């Protein structure tokens, strides 16, 4: 893979409207999407995911910045000249055409010979497992089938990049899970770069090679799912993805290659020090499954069990920390069955290994 293959977004900004109606949908966004990658844009509603996708597709023009595909700027090409295809959230199947005609459309527009078009359409029908439905109209298909046609229509063109804007959001949960697996399979088989938009963090974690977490027109963090989950670099990212404990703290004294943080009262936690440990007021982010509960008196955060929720594989304890240091969620695997070691009101120590603590500057 050469330096310049894939998509490079360089300092893209996009504003809509003017005066009082002005909306800054994207603010100086840069990112690199590698070839053959399943890349996800994840963020809450209104953070600019669709806008970024539409800029790559060419439906919107950037207010500033550039977009490169394999090292060549495509920012000023109209959509029909970009080797990029889109799966629309509404599917946008042509209602007056049959399934086969829908899939053939892009190929015909590129001037492919009839025989080849027919071959490619047949190939696509098999790929998305829709054999026999060639002559149906979109209105005669189920939501899941329409979804597959939209995929086939886009993939038939062998684009360099496939853009998918929340393609699964209209499907029910079961179908959604099936299509997640299906999409992953299609991406691996076709070797096409997928840029996938979702606001479902679980979907993003399970499907992506890498993902970008967006908020309010900015990209906060880019990384592999495990990296984003284990090492969030922003409070927002930590909070948005999965369940996490966020504790306010101040840096006390360095202790070798570790730093002791003071939470309030006499409560302290020892954390692994980064290259340049943040000083002053910080947040300590700790996943519930990385902490453990021990009887009171052990080295850890002192507190009392406030609630216990049994959820099958795990039990979730909510601990009220002493000295007003806040609440702490601990998730314990039920290795020994449902019989928990602690009851509500028990005094406990929450033990957190130094490497499980992510120190975030506020």
């Amino acid at each position, binding site marked *: 893979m050469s330096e310049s293959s894939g998509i490079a977004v360089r300092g893209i900004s996009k504003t809509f409207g003017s005066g009082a109606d002005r909306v800054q949908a994207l603010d100086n966004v840069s990112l690199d999407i590698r070839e053959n990658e399943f890349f996800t844009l994840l963020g809450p509603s209104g953070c600019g995911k669709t806008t970024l996708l539409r800029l790559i597709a060419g439906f919107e023009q950037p207010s500033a910045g550039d977009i490169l595909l394999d090292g060549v700027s495509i920012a000023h090409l109209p959509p029909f000249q970009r080797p990029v295809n889109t799966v*629309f959230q509404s599917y946008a199947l042509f209602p007056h055409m049959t399934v086969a005609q829908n899939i053939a459309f892009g190929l015909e527009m590129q001037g492919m010979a009839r025989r080849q078009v027919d071959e490619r359409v047949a190939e696509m029908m098999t790929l998305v497992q829709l054999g026999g439905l060639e002559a149906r109209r979109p209105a005669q298909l189920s939501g899941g089938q329409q979804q597959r046609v939209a995929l086939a229509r886009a993939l038939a063109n062998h684009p360099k990049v496939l853009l998918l804007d929340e393609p699964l959001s209209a499907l029910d949960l079961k179908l959604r899970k099936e299509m997640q697996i299906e999409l992953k399979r299609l991406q691996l088989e076709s070797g096409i770069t997928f840029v996938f938009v979702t606001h479902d963090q679980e979907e993003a974690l399970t499907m992506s090679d890498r993902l970008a977490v967006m908020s309010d027109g900015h990209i906060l963090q880019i990384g592999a799912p495990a990296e984003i989950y284990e090492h969030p670099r922003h409070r927002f990212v930590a909070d948005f993805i999965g369940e996490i404990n966020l504790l306010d703290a101040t840096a006390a004294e360095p202790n070798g290659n570790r730093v002791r943080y003071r939470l309030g009262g006499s409560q302290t936690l020892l954390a692994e020090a980064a290259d340049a440990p943040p000083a002053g007021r910080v947040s300590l982010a700790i996943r519930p499954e990385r902490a453990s509960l021990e009887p009171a008196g052990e080295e850890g955060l002192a507190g009392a069990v406030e609630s216990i929720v049994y959820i099958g594989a795990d039990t979730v304890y909510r601990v009220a920390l002493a000295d007003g240091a806040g609440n702490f969620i601990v998730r314990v695997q039920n290795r020994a069955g449902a019989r928990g070691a602690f009851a509500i009101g028990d005094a406990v120590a929450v033990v957190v290994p130094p490497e499980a603590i992510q120190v975030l500057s506020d």
Partner: protein
Amino acid sequence: MGGGNPLWRFVGVRPTALFFFVYLYLPIIVLLVLSFNENRTATIWTTFSTQWYAVVLDNDNIMRAARNSVIVATSATIIATILATLAALGMARARFRGQDAISATIAMPLVVPEIVTAVATLLFFVLIGLKLGLLTVFLAHTVFCIPFAYLPIRARLEGMDPALPEAAADLYANEWQAFRRVILPLLWPGVASGAMLAFIISLDDFVITYFVAGAGATTLPVYIFGMIRIGITPEVNAISALMLLVSILFVSLSYLVGRLRR
């Protein structure tokens, strides 16, 4: 009747509705009946006859007026529909400043009193020195037909998923191909519906035509008006009945086509 619509439960709805329909349609029914009257005096019934229809179809002046009407209606409809389609596409494309003003301007001929338009148009033609005739009638008709053609086309476009033209562009169709292959096929019921409405409006117009038609450019409504001034004859009833038939045909077609593939 009475099962589905809760309106029927209100006291007095039935008699009011009945009165309304009688009020609207009784004169037309009387006209239809009298057009089959054998008696020369149009308002006194004797026996059934279709002779007046034969007389009408045999009258060169009436047939010439009818031909003028069809020529004007057809050409005005074609031009008005093309312009209305372009306007609707332009308005649907994007939000821009002054859009509401333009929208109102397009619909303006619907609310301006016809007599004002008629006088203004006549004045305009005289000012620029255009000789009154079929051409001036055609020009005037094109203008007032545009809003009638525009409204169903615009409605159709508004019901269309805005992602469809984007999907076409995404699939390598240039603007013309996207229009030809995706937008027009989805739009055509609206276009056809608008065209048929425009045709009927043109065929039916009296006031403006009366002002801007020259000597040789008499249309059917203007001719009927001329006949009425001499007296109501059975021929007038027969032509009117024929025009009614054509109107009903086109309006029904327009309605049916407009509902296609909704």
